[in-house]
């Protein structure tokens, strides 16, 4: 993994979050949650700062990060796509939906597209089994997704960003 040099204000942001949780080692999971929420992912350098902030070993931080599937060390795309692999979604064809997303975007699960726009992840049940199979993009939920609709969903976001760049 290439070494990243964290910006001074990123380091300060992480340390502030640690302070918010009173620099307690027992708050490690909460700190990781909040930091990932701010930065999108938890690269090694970020974990080192958290270890310093909570006065615990970086091995321990890494142990927790690798234990919970929610935490990721890989940068997420601007539009993180999650395909539900829970039982209901699975039996209604989530696997084919996933395969179509991988084919369209040419990335594997856990990876991001080269332009950084999209990343694919799997998750287990968002509690919308009646809409199976379910796909989420960012905060938005798509229900009863068929493989044939995948292209359209991707285009919706791709065009969305093209529009954004025009207005910007």
């Amino acid at each position, binding site marked *: 993994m290439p070494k990243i040099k964290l910006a001074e204000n990123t380091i300060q942001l992480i340390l502030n979050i640690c302070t918010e949780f009173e620099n307690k080692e027992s708050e490690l999971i909460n700190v990781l949650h909040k930091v990932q929420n701010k930065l999108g992912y938890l690269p090694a350098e970020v974990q080192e700062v958290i270890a310093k902030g909570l006065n615990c070993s970086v091995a321990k931080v890494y142990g927790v990060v*690798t234990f919970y599937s929610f935490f990721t060390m890989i940068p997420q795309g601007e539009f993180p796509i999650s395909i539900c692999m829970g039982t209901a979604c699975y039996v209604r064809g989530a696997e084919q939906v996933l395969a179509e997303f991988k084919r369209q975007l040419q990335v594997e699960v856990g990876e991001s597209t080269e332009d950084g726009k999209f990343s694919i992840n799997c998750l287990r049940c968002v509690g919308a089994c009646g809409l199976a199979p379910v796909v989420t993009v960012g905060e938005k939920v798509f229900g009863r997704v068929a493989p044939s609709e995948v292209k359209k969903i991707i285009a919706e976001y791709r065009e969305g960003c093209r529009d954004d760049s025009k207005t910007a």
Partner: protein
Amino acid sequence: MDTVNLTIDNKPVVVKEGITILEAASGIGIDIPTLCHMKLDDLNIENKPGGCRICVVEVNGRRNLAPACCTNVHDGMEINTHSMRVINARRTVMELILSDHPFDCLICAKSGNCDLQDMAHKLGIREIRYKGEQSTYREDTSPAINREIDKCIMCRRCETMCNEVQTVGVLSAINRGFESVVSPAFEMNLDHSVCTYCGQCVAVCPTGALTEVDETGKVIRALSDPSKTVIVQTAPAVRAALGEEFDMEAGTLVTGKLVAALRRLGFDHIFDTDFAADLTIMEEGTELLNRLGKHLAGDKDVKLPILTSCCPAWVKFFEHQFPEMMDIPSTARSPQQMFGAIAKTYFADKLGIKREDLVVVSIMPCVAKKYECGRDEFKTNDNPDVDHAITTRELAALIKLSNIDFKSLPNEDFDNPLGESTGAAVIFGTTGGVIEAAVRTAYEVHTKKELPRLDFEELRGMEGIREATIDFDGLPIKIGIAHGLGNARKLLEDIQAGKSKFHAIEIMSCPGGCIGGGGQPYHHGNVEVLKKRQVAIYQEDKNKAIRKSHENPHIVKLYEEFLGEPMSEKAHHLLHTSYFDRT
């Protein structure tokens, strides 16, 4: 203290409340088998994850079996430790553990000393009914420790030692489920981590997952090379433990047999690290008195306390974790390295040979010594002062390999000049020993009076942190002692916070000091073994005719012929060192 009544295997027992089933059973001689659990009583070390489930017992009225190591007793409990249900469960658990363990016992470094192998034997496992995927993980080697994680059973003992006891924080369980392993952060190799190579993970690993780097082959090669003169030094703690490898009672002193065995192995000169320990006291003791004198005279640049620097794991620990305090430890090299430096100059000159033709082997209770002798500052023209450091265990293997019947060997003496030593040097092998040896010399040098007594009971013991005040003829010298790096950390944090009241502090990385070193015969969780070794070390001190380092005649001669005086320019060059920020 409240007590509870219960029965274990139909035996009525009255025990105090709050203890575990395992402890209650052990009190009446029932030895419930355990695998992950480990408790070293007097050292306050306990690993109790309740993970392996080998110690399950049946409790009447309870639906599921109870893990004895982490289930407390209560009044009226009826416990069965060997019912059919219990035995079946234990065997099933064992078979499941073995179904994901390599079957290379015949060639495993831990064979014969493996807790997992012993347990499979004890439980009479004759087949494994579960076949499935086996976890595989790359091997990781470093200057001192090998990791073969395929053999890990996730008992977490190494994690307890690395994090709670030593506070080094290198090892942690990572990943989840079948993928989980014990590893440094980001799965980096050990030699990229802040590992100190103290070897306490190796000392407690129940399987062959963590072992020392085996250097016996290099020693055999050197011994069979006719162009080399091969000399050997043996650390103080080795003589108090080596016998255990040959089924002798723990605490049996085998100094004479050790020397005889080394001679039969073919070493040209059998020397003693104790000689260099006496030399260490001359240098470190002088440094202590110098710093103390300047400090008392009001020199603000001179810092106290002075910390001992004999232990390579401790040195690496503060280089990684307290780099801003690198000016506090003594600059004196460890006895192993002082020996090497003198051997490859003074002694090589005496023999009239080049340093490249002299091979120095050391026998150490320690795995960090392997790393220490490879440090660049201890080399001249790329030739190390100490060529190979092997552990007590590796020496035992060499002796067995060479068909030597250790128990029937006669007692023999070390060679001169580097084999002469005092009682002060012997006690370097236990916590409290280095500072007691320093006190014996520093007192007499400072006061110019003879010590009224040589045994400083107030400096001895197994408490993790100890302190004592020694009266230097009207000058009270405050001394601190810590063994185990977690305890050392506490004293260091006090110094950092300006709260330390000590003039001098002795630090040893391993619990118990070198007698409990990572290279010693495995104690298998029995703290009595360490205590007996400690008794043996003090006995050896008492047996010595000379018990103060500055009275060692060969040390006096070494200064007259070669070094001049303690802290001289030559002594500085050969016997002192500097430290490096490793953050």
